[in-house]
Structure formats: structure tokens, C-alpha cells
């Protein structure tokens, strides 16, 4: 960030705030924002190969400041990583202190313009979703211009142009690629209004996105412009809802898609495959009060779309490919998180929710809630092409045709019941198949990815005891059984809260009967204080090696031992 930029930003904020209030009493607009600080102190612990960075401590944080005055708004985010926690962020390193995000926006009823950084999503994000998750350490914001117009009722058109955040080095650092896109969403029901009657509610939409990156290779004629598009619809009629999206990309050689097939050593794997991408996502739901079902089918072939050809697996993503599996929040379930395989997969999911009413046969006096889901994700059928020396397609991937390998499968069910005014309980079961050769989400005590497929069963009993109006004890007993990976685990969680300010928790994860005959305990104790929108928490203990996931992607977290402190606040 140059001196000139600082002065420009300061002047900008000054301009929108000051001039009009010198003489007249006027609305000065409003400020809002939030911040977060995470500190960690590392201690050596050879039994679990805990990491200790040379600084022995890590501190990261950010603060957002937003200003709104009528149709004008602006915002800025300070970020600091001195240094970032070990293995944070997921992709390219973030270091130093500075400004990572700033924008100015003017928006009114039918016109909205943003300059600077912005986050945007077209449809479900299959061709464009720029997003952030600060916990995970991803930030794909675009830096440029975005215009949204509403030319007619029910129609919204978005156009954008910009560079994408690549990493952070004492300030925002954009990557070399350029992203351009246009999107139209049409709410048919609203557009037709009373002109014509159609039963139900229908929305359609389409996007086109293109990226440009200069070809610096003297050997390969990489496409410098790569296009991608999508078409989608959503239809609701009474209790039914149907949604679907089809997306494609042009030939898109990248570092990531060289792993679709084994490439012989005489062919440079860094070139990637010159394959177009395709993907389909379909969902149908039926629901009414007390009951809901949902069916999802999804398939992908070579759908990674990044603004830099050589980007790593977590960097510069333009699109978002969500995993079909359901994110389970129980600790031991997080040993085996699924991550979407952008090179190809065929996946199906079905789920059911049911609320047995009070005074019904199964509901009893207080009612009973039941939910279950089944997910299966397989390799797509891949036909090898012997063309690596010529067109370099390398393989033909069939949509919705499964191959041999199962990547992931899970069946889970949960019962929740209010036993009495004081006590609530739930019971959870999961059966899991997890192919770690493909997903690489499970790690051993040497911080290395485990080999092979894991078959596991898991049971959780969760209880909630309300002591009085403000005091509450919640506990979980979790057991995971498997003959693979680290074998069996038992975990206990106890959480005592005094509303509205205090919480105390003690967690232990106990790994027994693993291949080396060792036992490992991973105890963590935490306490926290909450006041309105501010929260401070301290924890001390052992953290097992594993993967921390949010949404579609996961970051590897090495084993650690030590103290962490987190502070968050909003204003």
C-alpha cells in the first residue's frame, strides 16, 4: 500500500463524511463493523509430533469498518498475520499487516455500482462465486468494478470485471489473471405479474464468465482466454420445489487437472489436460409442516476454474463446487471430512426430516424429531484417450456414469427428544466409507495422510440438562469404531454455561487400540465470556492433526499443543 493510496482512502472517507454537516443538521450516516483476534502459543509435544513455529506464538486478526450514508457506502478491512497460525491460510501465505479489502458503493433501487473489492455469486456458484471464510483462511474477493441493474421488474443483470485476491503481503496482493463476467436472473412469476398466469413460481438464470491470463510458456500454446457458462432454473409449486443448474468451461489446462489420469513421465504433467469442463446439479424437495424430504444428484467433470493456471488447490478459485455430503458437526465425525473432487465425481444424496407431533403414537407427551440422510459419491466413468502427444484431452469423463471407485458414502440418522422440562437428549448414528487415497483428509500422528479406505461406525449420545433459568449442562459421549486408520476413538464433551455471560467446556478425545498399541488423549479445556456482541475465549490443550473444513474446502491442521485466545466483537 503506497502513501498515495493511504491518502486517497483517507480523503475518500473524509469526503463522504464531512462536507454537508458544517452548516446544517443532517443525518451523518452510520458506522458499523466487527473484528476478530486469534492468538496462539505453541508448546512442544513429541508424542503427537506437535508443531512449534520459530516464533513460538502466532497472532492473526482483522477489523472491518463499514460506513453507510443514504445510497453511498464504503468499507475497509485491516488484516494482520504476525505470523499467521501454522497451516493458516489454506493456500498461498498471508503475512504482515495492512489493508486487505476496501470498496466504495453507490446503490439505489435499480442501479448499484461497486468499485474496489467485492464478493459475488452467480446462481449456485458453479461458474462464479468469490467468497471469504476467515476461519479457513480463504479470500477470493475480486478487485475491480461491479454493476447491477434492474431494467424491468423481476429482471436483474450483473456485470463485473476485476482481478482476484491471490494472497496478502502487508496488504492485498492480486493475482495475474483477469476475471470478467455477466449474469442475468429472471423471476418469471414477478416479470409476468398479472399479464399471464402460470401456476407456481419460476426463476431462470444464466451466466457467462471468462478469465484471461497471459501465456508465458515458450513451449505450450496455452489458451489465454477461457470461458465458462451456466444455465439454471428453480420452480416451486405448493410443497414441491425443483432446482437445477448446468455449467461448462472451455478447454482449461491447469496444474490441478493433470491428476485426472496418470501421465507418463515422458509427458510433462505440469501442462495439465486440455479438456472442457461439465457439471450438473439437480435437487428436488417436498416438504410440509413437520415433514421434509430432499433428493440431490450431482456430477462433475474437469470443473476446476481458477484465475491462475498454476494456482495451488486452494488458490484463485473463480467457481465453487460444494461437496454433496452433509457437514457433521460432531468432533469425531470431523476425522473424515469429504472435499469435492473437481476433476470428476458422481454423487447422490437423499434426506428426510420428520417431526412426530405431541400426543402422537411415537411423539409422546413432548414430540420427537427424526432425521436421516444417505450420501454416495463415486468416481465417474473415465475412458482413456491415447492423445497426450497431440490434443492432450487424455480422458473422456462421463457425466452421471459411475466408475468402480467409491470416494465416499455415509448413512446417518438422529433422534431428538425433549424428555422433560429439564432434560433433552439425542442419539446419533453414522456409518461411513471414506477413500483417503482420493480425498486425503485423514492424517496420522506423523502428520502424514493415511492410506486406503476407512470403514467406520459412529454413535453419539447428547444430553442437555437445564439446571435452572440460566445454568445449563450439555454433554456428548461419542464413540467411533474402525479397523483402519487410527482405529477406535472415544470422546467426551462437557459444556457448562451460565447465561448470558459465561461458558466452560472440557473435551477429551481418546484414541485407543491403534496399530502401534499406543493410547493418545487429546484434552482441551476452554472458558469464555460473552457480553452482547463481544466474546472472549481461552483454551488450553492438545489439538489432533486433521482437517478443518468449511463449506467446500478443507485446510490441513497439524497436531499442536498450547494455548489459544480468541476475541470477537461487532458494533
Amino acid at each position, binding site marked *: *500500500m503506497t*502513501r498515495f493510496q*493511504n*491518502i486517497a*482512502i*483517507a480523503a475518500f472517507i473524509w469526503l463522504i*463524511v464531512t462536507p454537508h454537516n458544517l452548516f446544517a443538521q443532517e*443525518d*451523518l*450516516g*452510520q*458506522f458499523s463493523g*466487527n473484528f476478530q483476534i486469534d492468538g496462539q502459543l505453541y508448546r512442544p509435544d513429541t508424542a503427537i509430533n506437535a508443531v512449534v513455529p520459530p516464533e513460538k506464538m502466532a497472532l492473526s486478526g482483522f477489523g*472491518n469498518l463499514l*460506513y453507510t450514508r443514504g445510497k453511498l*457506502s464504503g468499507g475497509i478491512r485491516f488484516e494482520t498475520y504476525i505470523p499467521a497460525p501454522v497451516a493458516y491460510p489454506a493456500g498461498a501465505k498471508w503475512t504482515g499487516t495492512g489493508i486487505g479489502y476496501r470498496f466504495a458503493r453507490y446503490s439505489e433501487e435499480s442501479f448499484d455500482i461497486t468499485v474496489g473489492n467485492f*464478493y*459475488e*455469486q452467480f446462481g449456485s*456458484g458453479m461458474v462464479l462465486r468469490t467468497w471469504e471464510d476467515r476461519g479457513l483462511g480463504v479470500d477470493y474477493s475480486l478487485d475491480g468494478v461491479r454493476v447491477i441493474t434492474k431494467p424491468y421488474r423481476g429482471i*436483474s443483470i450483473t456485470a463485473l470485471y476485476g482481478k482476484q485476491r491471490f494472497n496478502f503481503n502487508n496488504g492485498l496482493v492480486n493475482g495475474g489473471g483477469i476475471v470478467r463476467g455477466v449474469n442475468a*436472473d429472471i*423471476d418469471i*412469476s*414477478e416479470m409476468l405479474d398479472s399479464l399471464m398466469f402460470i401456476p407456481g*413460481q419460476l*426463476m431462470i438464470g444464466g451466466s457467462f464468465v471468462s478469465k484471461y491470463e497471459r501465456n508465458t510458456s515458450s513451449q505450450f500454446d496455452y489458451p489465454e482466454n477461457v470461458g465458462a457458462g451456466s444455465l439454471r432454473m*428453480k420452480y*416451486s409449486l405448493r410443497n414441491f420445489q425443483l*432446482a437445477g443448474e448446468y455449467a461448462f468451461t472451455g478447454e482449461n489446462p491447469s496444474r490441478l487437472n493433470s491428476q485426472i489420469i496418470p501421465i507418463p513421465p515422458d509427458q510433462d504433467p505440469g501442462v495439465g489436460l486440455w479438456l472442457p469442463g461439465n457439471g450438473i446439479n439437480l*435437487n428436488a*424437495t417436498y*416438504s410440509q*409442516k*413437520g415433514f*421434509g424430504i*430432499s433428493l440431490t444428484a450431482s456430477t462433475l467433470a474437469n470443473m476446476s476454474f481458477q484465475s491462475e493456471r498454476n494456482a495451488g488447490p486452494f488458490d484463485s478459485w473463480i467457481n*465453487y463446487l*460444494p461437496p454433496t455430503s*452433509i*457437514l457433521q*458437526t460432531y468432533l469425531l465425525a470431523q476425522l473424515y471430512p469429504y472435499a469435492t473432487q473437481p476433476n470428476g465425481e458422481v454423487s447422490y444424496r437423499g434426506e428426510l*426430516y*420428520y*417431526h412426530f407431533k405431541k400426543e402422537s403414537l411415537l411423539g409422546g407427551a413432548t414430540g420427537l*424429531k427424526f432425521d436421516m440422510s444417505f450420501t454416495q459419491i463415486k468416481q465417474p466413468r473415465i475412458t482413456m484417450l491415447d492423445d497426450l502427444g497431440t490434443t492432450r484431452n487424455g480422458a473422456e469423463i462421463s457425466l452421471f456414469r459411475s466408475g468402480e471407485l467409491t470416494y465416499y458414502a455415509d448413512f446417518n440418522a438422529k433422534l431428538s427428544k425433549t424428555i422433560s422440562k429439564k432434560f433433552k437428549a439425542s442419539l446419533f448414528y453414522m456409518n461411513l466409507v471414506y477413500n483417503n487415497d482420493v480425498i486425503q483428509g485423514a492424517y496420522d500422528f506423523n502428520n502424514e495422510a493415511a492410506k486406503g479406505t476407512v470403514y467406520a461406525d459412529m454413535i453419539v449420545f447428547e444430553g*442437555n440438562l*437445564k439446571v435452572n*433459568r440460566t445454568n445449563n449442562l450439555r454433554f456428548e459421549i461419542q464413540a467411533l469404531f474402525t479397523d483402519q486408520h487410527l482405529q477406535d476413538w472415544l470422546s467426551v464433551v462437557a459444556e457448562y*454455561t*451460565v*447465561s*448470558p455471560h459465561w*461458558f466452560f467446556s472440557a473435551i477429551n478425545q481418546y484414541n485407543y487400540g491403534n496399530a502401534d498399541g499406543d493410547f493418545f488423549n487429546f484434552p482441551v479445556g476452554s472458558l469464555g465470556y*460473552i457480553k*452482547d456482541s463481544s466474546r472472549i475465549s481461552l483454551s488450553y490443550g492438545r489439538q489432533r492433526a486433521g482437517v478443518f473444513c468449511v*463449506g*467446500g474446502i478443507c485446510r490441513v491442521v497439524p497436531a499442536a499443543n498450547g494455548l489459544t485466545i480468541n476475541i470477537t466483537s*461487532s*458494533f
Partner: protein
Amino acid sequence: MKSLALCLLLLIVSTASFAQKTIPAIPVKDLQGHTFNTGELNNDGKPMIINFWATWCAPCKRELNTIAEVYDEWQKETGVKLIAISIDDARSQSRVLPFINGSSWEYEIYIDANQDFKRAMGVNNVPHTFLVDGNGYVVWQHNNYSPGDEEELYDKIRALTGK
């Protein structure tokens, strides 16, 4: 850097004279997929609760399930309305509608798929609850959920409505 820091300091010091926090106008989607502008959220001069949650957030579901049990009484006594903003992204968005129906929730629900509204409201983590008075000003907010927090929230609502 100095000029910027000074300028921001001045602004922060003078915030007292700035307007109270209101609800920013951000497009979100309703459960059918229609776009809805959050600037239009209102409850005819009665208070509103705006709650940020997600289907993958266990304490969020505990909070909204607990309030669901007393929501009838709250509405009858104070006329309060709860607006539940789901921050589920494309991964879990299709689960929102069957989930809320399966849970028998009666709330007004919107989806903030790319977290634009969450960002504009300065929310760090879910659950995060805002209480908005009849004039559209944010009068109270709370991060996190512990059983019993709903009692404090209800005390605040009653104070607003003079009940």
C-alpha cells in the same frame, strides 16, 4: 499510514453523534428464490428479532428450536416477529426448506447465500441475534447461544413493548 489512522480515529471518536444502527438494504432470497431487499424488513412498528443461523450450526438450531417452543406466546404477548437469516451456501441451501418444515418452525426465513447481509451487519460467527425496535433501530445484539439466553432476549422485547 499516519493520515489514514488519524482520520479513522477522528471518525471513531465522533461516532457518538452518528445515527444509530439500522438494517442495511442488501438483497437476499426467500425460500422460493425471489429476491428480497433487507431494507424492507419490518413488523408494523413492533419489534423484530433478526437471527443469523445455518443448518450446520448446532447451537443455532438449539436456539431456534428453543424459541420455537415459546414463539406462540411471545407473538401473542408482544407481537414480535423472528426473521431467521440462513447463511447456508450452495452446499446446504437445498436442505433449508425441508429442514425448517421438518422442524415445524414458523419463522420468516431468508437465505444469505454469499454472506453479503452477514458482512453488512458485522456478524463474525453464527448464531448472532439482533433485536430491532419498532422504528427500525438495532437496540441490542448477542453473539453465541447458551440455554437461558432466550430469557434475556425476551426481557428486552418486553421492555421495548412495555409489557
